[in-house]
């Protein structure tokens, strides 16, 4: 499996780059301008895929963390760490592009809408996860605490999904809402959104594979130090 996996990882940037160029063509040339929001609505085509990539990354953290807690195998912990970092990158992009869209449409950079509040809570939980991994030390107990945090954090994702309807926030439901309420009227709009989402998913997979390879090297360095330390103590 490993040669196939690394061949895929090597091929990913060559797939992602032309796909991104095609996505930009769709966003800026093919897709019609939305009638009520105007050109600023095009931010949705990167904002929404970034959100989906972030959610997928954090859900992968939860699954890998669960597997780590169940089996104790370090490989799952490495996957969780890689997914958490990449998920944070996309979640940060969501929290920056959202206010840039909101300023001309809502007249405010930020409101404490349920979906926005839940998203910033999600970002904070995984920021805590990454801080714990960075400064908590190499002990297995730290990895276990982080795994629990990684699972608890992912519970926020379904809440973000249903918050628009549950608490009647002002954030639009892009996919399911009618066109006059911020939904996507034209089929090209949907095609552009789903195509860009696929590009972002591939990009996230590539970034995770690169980060995973780096974590393996970092763990090897750590193991070498520990080995050396143990040899010194015995000597």
């Amino acid at each position, binding site marked *: 499996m490993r040669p196939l996996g690394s061949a895929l990882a090597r091929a990913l940037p060559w797939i992602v780059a032309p796909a991104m160029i095609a996505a930009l063509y769709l966003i800026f040339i093919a897709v019609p301008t939305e009638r009520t929001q105007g050109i600023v609505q095009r931010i949705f085509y990167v904002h929404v895929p970034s959100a989906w990539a972030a959610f997928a990354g954090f859900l992968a953290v939860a699954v890998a963390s669960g597997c780590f807690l169940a089996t104790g195998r370090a490989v799952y912990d490495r996957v969780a760490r890689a997914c958490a970092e990449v998920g944070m990158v996309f979640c940060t992009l969501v929290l920056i*592009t959202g206010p840039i869209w909101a300023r001309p449409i809502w007249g405010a950079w930020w409101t404490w809408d349920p979906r926005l509040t839940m998203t910033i809570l999600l970002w904070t939980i995984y920021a805590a996860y990454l801080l714990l991994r960075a400064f908590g030390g190499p002990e297995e107990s730290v990895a276990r605490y982080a795994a629990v945090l990684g699972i608890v954090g992912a519970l926020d994702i379904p809440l973000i999904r249903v918050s628009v309807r549950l608490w009647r926030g002002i954030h639009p439901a892009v996919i399911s809402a009618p066109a006059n309420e911020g939904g996507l009227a034209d089929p090209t709009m949907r095609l552009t959104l789903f195509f860009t989402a696929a590009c972002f998913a591939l990009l996230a997979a590539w970034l995770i594979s690169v980060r995973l390879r780096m974590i393996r090297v970092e763990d090897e360095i750590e193991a070498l130090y520990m080995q050396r330390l143990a040899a010194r103590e015995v000597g």
Partner: protein
Amino acid sequence: MDHFPYLFGGFSVVWIGLFLYLWSLDRRSRRAEKDLEELRRRFGDG
């Protein structure tokens, strides 16, 4: 076209952010590989 600066800002943030993260990954990855090689050489010699 009133909202063009917002559109430009939004897309700039995404692409600059992604490129910065890629650059940071590459830099950290090279440093980690170099450190590992250095440690292997040093501990191997010791």
